[in-house]
C-alpha cells in the first residue's frame, strides 16, 4: 500500500480545510484564554493570601506611586483601543492604516513595559526585592507574569507586522491578527484587575 497515494502540491487560495483551520484557531484561542484565566486566578489568589505578610520589610503601600501606574494603565487601555482601530482598518482592507495602528499598539505596549521596568527598579532600589518578604514575592510573581504577557504580545504583534503581510491582507493573516487582538485585550483586562487589586486596594488599606 505504501506509495499508492500520489502527492501533489496544495493549490493556492482558500480551501474549505483552510477555512476550518482558521475557525479552529479562533475557537482554540478562546479555550486557551480560559486556561489563562485559571493561571491568573491562581496568581491573584496567591497575592491576596500573602498580601499582608510583609515580615517587617518595606511595604508596597509605602512605595506605590499612583500617578505613574495611572499613566501605565492609560497607555495599556489606549493600546486596546488602537488594536480595535487596526482591526477595523483591516476589515476595510486598508493595509497601511492597519499596519500604522498595529505599530501604535506596539508602541503603547512598549511604553507600559518601559514604565513597569522603571517601577520595578525603583522598588528594588528601595529594598522591596523579590526576597524581601512573601508579600514582595507575590507582588513580583503576579505583576511580573502580567508584564511577561505584555512582552510576549509585543513580540507577537511585531512578528506579524514584519513577516505576515507580504501579500497584503489575506484570509490567513486576518485570523492571525484577530487572535493576536484577542490576546492583547485579555492581557489588558487582566491589568485592570491587577490595578484594582494590587494598586488601588493598597491605597484603601
Amino acid at each position, binding site marked *: 500500500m505504501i506509495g499508492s497515494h500520489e502527492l501533489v502540491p496544495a*493549490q493556492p487560495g482558500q480551501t474549505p480545510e483552510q477555512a476550518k*483551520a482558521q475557525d479552529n484557531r479562533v475557537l482554540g484561542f478562546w479555550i486557551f484564554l480560559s*486556561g489563562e484565566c485559571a493561571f491568573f486566578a491562581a496568581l491573584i489568589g496567591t497575592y491576596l493570601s*500573602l498580601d499582608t505578610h510583609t515580615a517587617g520589610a518595606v511595604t508596597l503601600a509605602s512605595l506605590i506611586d499612583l500617578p505613574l501606574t495611572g499613566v501605565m494603565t492609560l497607555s495599556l487601555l489606549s493600546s486596546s483601543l488602537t488594536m480595535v482601530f487596526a482591526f477595523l482598518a483591516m476589515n476595510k482592507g486598508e493595509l497601511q492604516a492597519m499596519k500604522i495602528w498595529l505599530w501604535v499598539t506596539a508602541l503603547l505596549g512598549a511604553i507600559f513595559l518601559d514604565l513597569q521596568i522603571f517601577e520595578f527598579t525603583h522598588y528594588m532600589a528601595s529594598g522591596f526585592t523579590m526576597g524581601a518578604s512573601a508579600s514582595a*514575592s507575590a507582588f513580583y510573581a503576579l505583576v511580573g507574569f502580567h508584564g511577561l504577557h505584555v512582552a510576549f504580545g509585543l513580540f507577537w504583534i511585531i512578528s506579524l507586522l514584519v513577516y505576515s503581510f507580504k501579500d497584503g491582507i489575506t484570509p490567513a493573516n486576518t485570523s492571525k491578527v484577530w487572535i493576536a487582538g484577542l490576546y492583547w485585550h485579555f492581557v489588558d483586562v487582566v491589568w485592570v484587575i491587577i490595578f484594582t487589586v494590587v494598586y488601588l486596594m493598597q491605597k484603601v488599606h
Partner: protein
Amino acid sequence: MAAVAELVGTKGRQRSQSYLMSWLTTADHKRIGIMYLLAATFFFGVGGIEALMIRIQLSSPGNTFVTPALYDQLFTMHGTTMIFLAVMPLFIGFINCIVPLQIGARDVAFPRLNALSLWLFVLGGILLNSSWFLGGAPNAGWFNYAPISLTPFNPGPGIDFYDIGLQLAGIGTLMTGVNFIATIINNRAPGMSLMRMPLFTWTTFVTSVLILFAFPPFTVNLFLLMFDRLMGANFFNILKGGNVLLWQHLFWIFGHPEVYILILPAFGIISEVIATFSRKTIFGYDSMVLATIAIGFLAFTVWVHHMFVDGFGPYVNSLFAITTLAIAVPTGVKIFNWIFTMWGGKIKFTTAMLFATGFIPLFVIGGISGVMLAMAPADFQYNDSYFVVAHLHYVLIGGSLMGVLAGAYYWFPKITGRLLNETLGKWHFWLMMIGFNVTFFPMHFLGLLGMPRRVATYSAAMGQAVAFWNLVATIGAFILAISFLFFFYNLIKSLKSGERAGPDPWDGRALEWATESPAPVYNFAKTPLVRGRDAWWVEKTEGDGQLRSAEPEQDGESAHHAHGIHLPTGSIFPFLIALGLTIAGYGAIFGLLLLVAIGLALAFFSIHRMIVDEDPGEIVQPVGGAGE
C-alpha cells in the same frame, strides 16, 4: 523498529524525508499517538522497576536493600513517573489514535500544536529522569510538599528536576487539553451531534476541560517553587511571611482533578469495550454523559479532603467530606450502567472484555475505600498510612491501568493492523488479577495495623502480622511484574507476526471500525455522514454495511475524489521549541545562564516561525470508497 515502519503513519505518504525526520516532524495524530504510547510504555517500565525496588526493600523488617535516602527518591519517582509520564500519556496516546477516528475527522484541530505537546512530554520526562545521573532524583513525594522541598532541607538539584520536568510536560498536557476541546467541538463529521458521540469521545472532552482548568494552578505552583529555590523568593518560607499551606492548596486544586483526568478516559474505554462485547448499545447513554460531566464538575470541589489533618476545623472538613461522598453517586450510576449493559447481552470474553469486567470489582473496592477515606473523622486514623496506599493503587491500577489495558487489547488491531495474541493476553489478565490483589489487598491490613507510608523500613517490633503481609505484598508485586512480561512479549510478537486484523475484527460499533486497520493517513476516504448513535453499527444493521458519504457528489464523484484530500503537513519547529525549552531547563537547574539564553533563543525563534509560517498543507489522493 522495522515492524513499526508498517504502522499507520508511513502509509499514504511519499517517503521524501529520512525515516527519523519523518517522525520528528510529523503532525499526523495517529503517529503522534503511537509515539505517546511508546514513550509512556518506556516510562511505565521505569516506574515499575522503581516499584519492585520499593517492594524488595519492604519485604522484611529492618531491611537494608536500599538506603533511606535512595528509598525517598524511589517512592517519589515511582509516583511521579506513573502519574505524569505513564498513565496520563498512555490515555493521551489512545485519545490521539482513536478520538479523531471516532468523530470522523481528518485530524485534530491543531496538528502542529499536537506535536508540540508530544515533544514537551517526551523531553520533560527525559529531563526528570536524567536527575538519577545528575545529582540525585527528587525525594519529597509526588506531591512535593513545602517546606521539605525548599533549599534549606533539600539542597541538591533533585527538586529542581521535578519542578522543571513537570513544568515542561504539564504545558504539553495543557496544549493537548485545548486541542481536543477544539477538535471535539469543531471537527465532528456531519450528523455527529453531541448526544451521538461515543462515550470515549465524551470522556475525552470532559477530561480535556479538567486539564484546561487544573493544570494552570499547577503551573503557577511550580513557578512559585522555582522562584523560591532559584531566585530567593519567599512564598513558602515561613521566616519571611511565606505559607506552606499555599503549596498544598494550589497542588490539590490541581491534584484532585488530576486523578479524575486519570480515570475518566478509563470509564470511556470500559464503556466502549463492554458495549462491543455484549453486542448491545450502552445502557443509559444519557445518564453516562451526565455522570461524566457531574464527576468533572465535582472534581474541582473536593481538594481539601487531601488536607483533612491540616487543622481547618470541623466546618471546612465537613463541607469537603460531603462533596467527596457526593462523587460516589455519579460513579455508582456508571457502575450499574455497565452491569445493565452486560445484562442479557451476548457476552464474548475476549481479553479486552476480561480487563473491562475485571475493572468493575477492583474499581468498586477502590471506590469503597475512597468513601471510607472521605469521612473526615475516620480519615484522621487512615491518614498517611498504608490504607491510603492500598486505596490509591486500587483506583489507579484496578481502575486506570485496567482501563488502559482493556483499551490496548481493544485498539491494538486498529492502531497496528494486527491482533494481539489472545492466549498470552489471558495469561496476562489472570496473572495480573492474582498479582495485583495479592500485592495491594494486604496493604489495607497494613494500614489499619499502623504502618506509615513513605518510611524506608519498619521495625520487627510492629508484630508478625506486619512482616507477614509485607512479604505477601512483595511476592504479589513479582507476580504482577511477570504478568507484564507476558504483555510486553505479546506486544513485540504480535507486532511482528500477529494475525491480520482487518478493518473490523470485533464487530465494533463506533466509527473507528469503519476504516482500514491501520487507518490511512486521511482516516476516511470520504467524510462520513453519521446517522445515529453507534454510527458504524447503525450502518451495518440498518444500512448496507457501507458508510454514507457526507460530501456532495459531482458527476458521480465526490469533490475529494476529484481533487484529493487536503492534509496538514509536518514541521520541525514543535520539536525545536520543546528542545529549546528543555535546554533552558537544564540551564536553570545548574545556574548556567548562557545555556538558558541559548535554549530560550532557540525556543523563541521556533515560536516565531510557528506564528508567521502558514501550513500550505498537501493533497493526498485516496484509494477506494469511504468504507475501505
